[in-house]
């Protein structure tokens, strides 16, 4: 009984410290009261097992295991611990996007050990948070670490502790076990410099910090017990929320000149590497997936690819063209207003006025009618549906691994079409009988993206039968469709015979006639062969792109070229 009241007492003391702990970071931030679990069991239920505390960014919560706090003898450090947890919420990582960016940078610095990125990120964030609490708020962060000192020979941990000793001017062996080797001393000096120099732009320093830790990861064969206690922000997401902004790579825009000399070298290197790995300012799909997985988000490769291309497509999204429909309706009567003697006589609505009063008194009982059509309103339009055929033969990259501009262009056009109210039929094709397609024309983004991000990598045979079945039995008056084929010279397999022996050329001509919205081939070709010239004669618009990146330009021009809508 006495035990419980003791715990309660501590709990009260901790809860009353919360507000001031949060205001260390910002007087304006509101965070939920921390959940202080009395027993380890209760803490485990919240997902807290090896550490004494944890944060969840998705619901702004902090969970602390009071049982562990007591065990570790940290009851007297409520401001230190709670201030630290609040720091994770307010300072770093603060939100899931920044966490993802940091994990991405760290992963680039620790090849082969990407799975340990969340741990390194946690150590780095702690370093920054603790340094600020120690220096600006004079909290006893050193005492907290000192309390937990003892017994760890883990090199990574000793390097990390030595970094604090240097940062806080603590005598050697305050936090470390024994005098450290010269290499560790050097690493700790560098790490302390990073903590200071990148305190404001903390994301930028994460890759540098990780490259120092890399050596220790390589050598370490065992999990560091000491590290475990501190893993309070190892997985602050909910395992489902995918933050936006991670498809974009963090261009290493650090100007090394602004760094102190001793950091210049280390800062140069990872940047160079990032540049040589991918010139573009986007991550590759596999890297994107690696980050999400490190954040505890378990999606299939396909789901990751769909999200990846969706996010990359968004900046390009355009309104899908619609064909203008003649404005048919009569102006709609919307109501009446007073008609006064000075108003135009033709505006007077006798009918409405007499409805109001059998006696006409100008200015009193007379009204004029107001109607619904107003100037400047766009004419009514009907969207054109999209029938898109994407080549997935062996010459194309697997979109789930590396950036496929083919898939990206497909995503841009399809998502634009959906935005414009159109329906989309998407077909991914490779060799004979190798195709997947949406169930007809649909408006389901997920279904469409799942098709676009698929992969065959086989031979080349255009799915003539899909086109045949789409257009040969079309009802008259169906919505217009634009046919778009993205491929290379393999597109001419469209003119081969289909499985029933029909001439593909006849089907292509008929489809183009029936669809009513025109047809385009966007092709990775250098010159037109005879068959393509024939296709052009049929009426297909041929848009050569010499590299797939040009497709992005195509996807934007696609609309203008065919529909050229003019505003009224």
């Amino acid at each position, binding site marked *: 009984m006495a035990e419980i009241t003791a715990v309660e007492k501590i709990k009260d003391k901790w809860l009353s410290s919360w507000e001031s702990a949060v205001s260390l970071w910002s007087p304006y931030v509101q965070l939920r009261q921390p959940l202080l679990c009395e027993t380890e069991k209760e803490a485990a239920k919240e997902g807290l097992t090896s550490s004494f505390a944890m944060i969840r960014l998705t619901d702004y919560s902090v969970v602390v295991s009071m049982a562990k706090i007591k065990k570790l003898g940290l009851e007297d450090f409520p401001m230190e611990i709670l201030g630290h947890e609040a720091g994770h919420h307010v300072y770093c990582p603060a939100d899931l996007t920044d966490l993802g960016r940091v994990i991405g940078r760290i992963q680039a610095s620790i*090849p*082969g050990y990407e799975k340990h990125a969340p741990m390194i990120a946690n150590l780095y964030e702690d370093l920054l948070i603790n340094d600020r609490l120690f220096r600006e708020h004079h909290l006893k962060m050193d005492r907290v670490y000192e309390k937990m000192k003892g017994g760890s020979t883990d090199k990574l941990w000793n390097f990390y502790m030595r970094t604090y*000793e*240097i940062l806080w*001017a603590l*005598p*050697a062996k305050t936090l470390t076990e024994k005098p450290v080797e*010269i*290499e560790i*001393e*050097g*690493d700790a*000096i*560098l790490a302390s*410099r990073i903590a*200071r120099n990148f305190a404001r732009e903390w994301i930028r320093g994460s890759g540098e910090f990780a*490259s*120092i830790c*890399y*050596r220790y990861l390589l050598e370490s064969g065992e999990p560091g017990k000491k590290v475990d206690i501190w893993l309070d922000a190892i997985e602050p997401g909910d395992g489902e929320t995918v933050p936006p902004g991670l498809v974009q790579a963090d261009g290493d825009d650090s100007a090394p000149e602004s760094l*102190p*000399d*001793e950091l210049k*070298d*280390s800062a140069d*290197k990872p940047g160079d*590497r990032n540049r*040589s*790995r991918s010139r573009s300012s986007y991550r590759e799909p596999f890297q994107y997936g690696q980050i999400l997985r490190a954040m505890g988000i378990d999606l299939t490769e396909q789901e990751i690819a769909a999200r990846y291309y969706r996010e990359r497509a968004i900046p390009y999204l355009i309104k899908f063209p619609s064909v203008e429909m003649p404005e048919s309706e009569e102006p709609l009567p919307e109501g009446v207003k007073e008609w006064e003697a000075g108003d135009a006589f033709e505006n007077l609505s006798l009918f409405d006025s007499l409805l109001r009063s059998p006696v006409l008194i100008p200015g009193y009982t007379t009204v004029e009618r107001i109607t619904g059509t107003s100037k400047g309103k766009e004419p009514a339009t009907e969207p054109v549906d999209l029938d898109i055929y994407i080549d997935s033969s062996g010459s194309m990259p697997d979109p789930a691994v590396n950036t496929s501009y083919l898939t990206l262009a497909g995503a841009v056009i399809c998502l634009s079409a959906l935005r414009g109210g159109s329906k989309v039929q998407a077909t991914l094709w490779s060799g004979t009988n190798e195709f997947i397609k949406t169930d007809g024309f649909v408006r389901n983004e997920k279904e469409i993206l799942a098709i676009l991000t698929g992969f065959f990598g086989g031979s080349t045979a255009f799915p003539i039968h899909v086109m045949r079945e789409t257009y040969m039995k079309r009802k008259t008056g169906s919505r217009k469709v634009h046919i778009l084929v993205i491929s290379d010279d393999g597109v001419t397999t469209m003119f081969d015979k289909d499985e029933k022996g029909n001439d593909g050329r006849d089907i292509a001509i008929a489809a183009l006639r029936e669809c009513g919205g025109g047809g385009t081939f966007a092709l990775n070709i250098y010159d037109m062969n005879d068959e393509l010239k024939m296709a052009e004669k049929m009426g297909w618009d041929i848009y050569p792109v010499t590299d797939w990146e040009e497709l992005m330009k195509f996807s934007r021009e696609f609309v203008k070229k065919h529909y050229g809508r003019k505003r009224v």
Partner: protein
Amino acid sequence: MKEGPSIEYMLDRLAAIPAVFMKEFSSGGDIDSGIILHALVNDLLLDTGESPLTSDEIKSIEGLRNKKNYHRLVAILCHLYHDQFFIENRPETGLVRKIIFSQKLQILGEAVDNEEIFISDPDRREELCRLALMAVNLYPRGEDENRSKERLATLDSIERKKILDKTRQAQQRAREIREAMLRKEAEEAASKMSRE
């Protein structure tokens, strides 16, 4: 060793360094307007109870004109010592003179890229203040002799440069190899007919 002023006191003193101390020094002619360094040193020596500079010493100071950052360090030390504390609590005779002409100061000047760092960088500021105290047999108030020696060792630019060079060498090749491996693994391997 005796207790001297606190490190904060020294840092404040350093922060208050007059701008002219950080400008181009006069070479002795009458056209330029900068301060004359040996005159500054001479003043300091007199005020802390030492004998004035000899003509050989003046030559020696001027002779080190091209030693990287050395003159600046001398000027900063002059400012640090030219403080009420040191004037009232005169350091043991010879000590101020010794640090000004020390090899240590010359090497320290070599260890950094530019002189501004002793003012702008918090670690270097602290190092210089601690060095100034240590040179006149003092340790900062609130610390003890061992603690202050250890902290100075941690901050020691010269030692630090050695350590970092060594660390960098070790990391450099490792990084090169890992990067080459990473790059190649991402690209592709060379075809072989058996697997392991």
